[in-house]
């Protein structure tokens, strides 16, 4: 059975409990941070930071009101992951329960997944030479919800069977009058296991516009190795022609 997580930014209070619990469950070290104009901290996902809360301060010029928008951000766990398609060593697997997981023992650090991911999620580490990202706590799912979901005090993150989550999303969308990002209204890469219900357009939250199917460049890359067949045939023909001309030369 497929599982999913509903992300409801309208309920998020930006406590960063999900960030902390993710670090603790995955035993990841903290990042050295610095002050910046943004409140997002750490500013970017990294090899050791699988999830973070993005802080967006929105100002309405007509009413002169400001509003905080908090959004939990990490791997979307796509139905057709571009990262897995790009990986030459099959180190990335999409599980039927939903998680997309990087097998660190197979990863060779080629970074193809980083280029392929339209959400810019996988991160490379210079020290280990490997790539990592959120794995949707595949070692807990489905008997337990992911660590970030368990830590959320306001139910801004809800875990459950995908059908149930989709129904929840539709109900919540009706309440908010917004959109569903990840499924229903917008299905990046065939739909995702993290589904956002938003009270505004996805672009307001900085969510990228991603096509429903894999970019055509990825299958082209995967099947281009078949060009070796005409290349080998061409090489053999050239060899045969060369040998023929040599024989004729010798006969002369």
């Amino acid at each position, binding site marked *: 059975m497929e599982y999913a997580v509903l992300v409801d930014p309208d309920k998020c209070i930006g406590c960063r409990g999900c960030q902390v619990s993710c670090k603790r469950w995955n035993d990841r070290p903290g990042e050295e941070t610095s002050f910046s104009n943004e409140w997002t901290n750490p500013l970017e996902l990294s090899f050791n930071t699988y999830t973070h809360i993005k802080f967006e301060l929105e100002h309405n010029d007509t009413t002169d009101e400001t509003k905080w928008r908090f959004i939990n951000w990490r791997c979307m766990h796509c139905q057709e992951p571009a990262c897995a398609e790009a990986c030459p060593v099959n180190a990335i697997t999409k599980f039927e329960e939903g998680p997309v997981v990087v097998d660190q023992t197979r990863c*060779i650090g080629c*970074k193809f997944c980083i280029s392929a991911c339209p959400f810019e999620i996988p991160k490379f580490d210079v020290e280990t030479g490997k790539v990592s990202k959120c794995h949707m706590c595949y070692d807990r799912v489905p008997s337990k919800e992911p660590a970030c979901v368990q830590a959320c005090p306001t139910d801004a993150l809800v875990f459950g069977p995908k059908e149930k989550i989709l129904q929840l999303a539709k109900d919540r969308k009706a309440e908010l009058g917004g959109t569903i990002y990840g499924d229903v209204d917008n299905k990046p890469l065939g739909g995702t296991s993290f589904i956002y219900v938003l009270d505004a357009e996805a672009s307001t939250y900085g969510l990228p516009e991603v096509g429903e199917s894999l970019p055509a460049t990825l299958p082209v*890359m995967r099947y*281009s*190795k078949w*060009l070796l067949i005409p*290349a080998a045939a061409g090489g053999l023909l*050239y060899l045969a022609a060369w040998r023929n001309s040599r024989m004729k030369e010798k006969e002369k």
Partner: protein
Amino acid sequence: MPKETNAPRKKYPPKVAETGTRTIIKGMFQVSLLDSAFHLLMAILLITGLLIDLLGSWLGGWLFWIRQVAHGYLGTLFVIIFILYILKALVSKKMRTVLTATNYVDFLFYIALIITGISIASANAPWITYIPELAEALAPIAAYAPTIHIVGTYVWILFSTIFPGGILHGLATAYLISHLKKRSERGA
């Protein structure tokens, strides 16, 4: 069975019969370090790249060091060597006389592979933050770089065997070097 002919056998330079493959390779480096390094590195990069792409599904993590050292660090060295090689071609008339049209097309392929290679390597790399101009220049191709890199290699192989270019030239050279001693012993 090949016919016996009276055609004169090829004469190889004196002492070639006594030299082994190792001596010939050593001699190549003595004659032109740049030329030999360029060709050797290109062969290593091509073989390791093919190894990763064709056998990656089976070998998986075993290819880590091959990717890291033989394709990554040596790839960086190749970029430097290639720049020097192009500079040498620009200044040396003697070198330009031996370059064919196919060689120049080969160079275009290498340039495409080098640019996409740098683009792939720069993702999440700390060094790219020190060169923001390069990061900005590479940004438009970041998503397509792996595809251009892989497809470009196979198209180059195809082009190279049909016309013929670098691949057949490389195979012929490897064949000649490995058979030189045997042939010279027969023909000397």
